[in-house]
């Protein structure tokens, strides 16, 4: 089954961009990764068997490309960590980039939540983005992530629990800064 660029772009481009952006939180990287998704999709579209919907297939590739990005990022970080001993906590590096302008105008709670998303695992983050930011159903989310419905529910619950923990900690500190 051959899938055309126009078909994907017209129906899914903005959703695809949105998903990858919230995964990686960088517009330039998002553009690169979106392009990588298109390349993979168009190069392998003849192999698309139609067992799943194009949407599910597309987003599962987007997830894979995002995971690949995180692996690369981790490698770079590991290489840097070889030179600078940051100890066991070296994997938790605060994101110092300014908030994107679309987010900067939002309430303090939403801005904090945006920051806390980074404390979630990649799976938790994927589920929360698909379910609540992009309003995908549990079934669609399960199909995209290749999870069972019950795994989506568990992952979703754990992610929300983690966000709640950060919110409560922030409230107890009495602060409203971006960070955790």
């Amino acid at each position: 089954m051959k899938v055309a660029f126009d078909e994907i772009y017209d129906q899914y481009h903005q959703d695809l961009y949105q998903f990858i952006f919230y995964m990686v939180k960088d517009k330039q990287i998002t553009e690169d990764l979106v392009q990588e998704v298109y390349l993979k999709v168009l190069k392998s579209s003849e192999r698309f068997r139609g067992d799943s919907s194009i949407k599910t297939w597309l987003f599962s590739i987007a997830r894979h490309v995002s995971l690949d990005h995180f692996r690369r990022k981790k490698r770079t970080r590991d290489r840097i960590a070889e030179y600078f001993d940051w100890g066991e906590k070296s994997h938790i590096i605060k994101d110092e980039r300014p908030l994107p302008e679309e987010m900067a105008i939002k309430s303090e709670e939403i801005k904090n939540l945006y920051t806390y998303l980074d404390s979630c695992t990649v799976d938790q983050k994927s589920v929360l983005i698909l379910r609540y930011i992009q309003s995908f159903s549990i079934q669609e989310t399960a199909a995209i992530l290749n999870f069972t419905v019950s795994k989506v529910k568990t992952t979703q619950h754990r992610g929300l629990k983690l966000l709640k923990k950060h919110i409560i900690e922030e409230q107890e500190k009495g602060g409203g800064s971006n960070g955790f």
Partner: protein
Amino acid sequence: MDSNQQKYDEITEQLSQFPTFTDRRDKETIRQQIFAQMKQDEPTKQYKHRKRWIPLASTLLATTVLVFISFLYYSNTDVLKENSTQQDAMVTEEETLIEKSADQENGAQSNGNLEPSNQMGMFVQQTNEQSIVIHGATSDPQLQFVIPVSFIAPNDKSKEMYYNQLETYIQEHVPLRSNYLFKGISFKLDEGNKKVILELPKDFSISEGSTVPNMFEDQLRSMFSPYGIEKAVFNNNEGIDFGQFGTIHELALNKTKTAYKLYSDEQNNLLVEVPLDEYTTIEEALAEMQIGEEDYNVFPTVPGEMEFSVVTQGEQLDISLDNEVTIEDSRTGTIMVEAILMTAKSFGYNFVKINNISGDRVGYYDVSEPLRVPDAVNPIMLH
């Protein structure tokens, strides 16, 4: 409504209010960028898909029992998928051959040759003085997963000699449409200093995107970390153009935790490596093995409905099944056990005991006793 639920509702409400981010590029710009990239990739693609079979008579003749077992056994299996009557018939025929092969191997073992694991030879438990394992690696055609391949070779030649013929061995024995990433490179092992030295051909570059550099690094790790090698050194003045990582002169090859899944296409059924984060627990790794990536022909090795708990006892991993899952197909069971053993090995375990399973056997494995983790996976015999 309890306060917990109220808090969760607030969070989900706030998430739904997150702003929409839109791509600032227009459709035509994106189209042009993508098609320009596709065009740029085209020569590589043609090269990648060119079949290059160079069967050497001597090696073909020498490729005996174990190769036959590896590919025959795994071939045409629909792992964790439904079996057809036709496949069942094929299995019976294959299993007869495998058992015969295993008997032959046992005979060979007493003559001082290989020591196959669990009477099957799917894995190499350990080799003796006459044999060495050459850990090779290739990938799926889309360069997403490393496929480790272990060549069992006579110990009368150096590892370097085998590594410098690796492209030929892989082309001959692994029918995958994957590009060989180490073309023109010669390897020199310095196990004393835990490094492998790569002599690069002039103008060698792997800067194409980020996928190739990642796969290059992952394959090097898969090939050399089993020997305790910790870094790869590029023996030229310029270093190597490593795409977005810039020019580098050496690469750290640290062992990583890995989950093993199954790559399955018309011609191959091979275990593949899925690298895991260093903070992943063995329980999470087993859960990862329940997930397939079917768009890439990668399938789960642990049934999705299986629930389990794990306990560590020193160097042994105890896995207890919490529900009853029937594994109808002996091949599926065999592959599951092997994938679990390899995954456990990457977490540092030496033995695995599987409890609460009906009967003493899973596939071809007797699970009434702890199973030793193997030396190598996807073995191919060279003579």
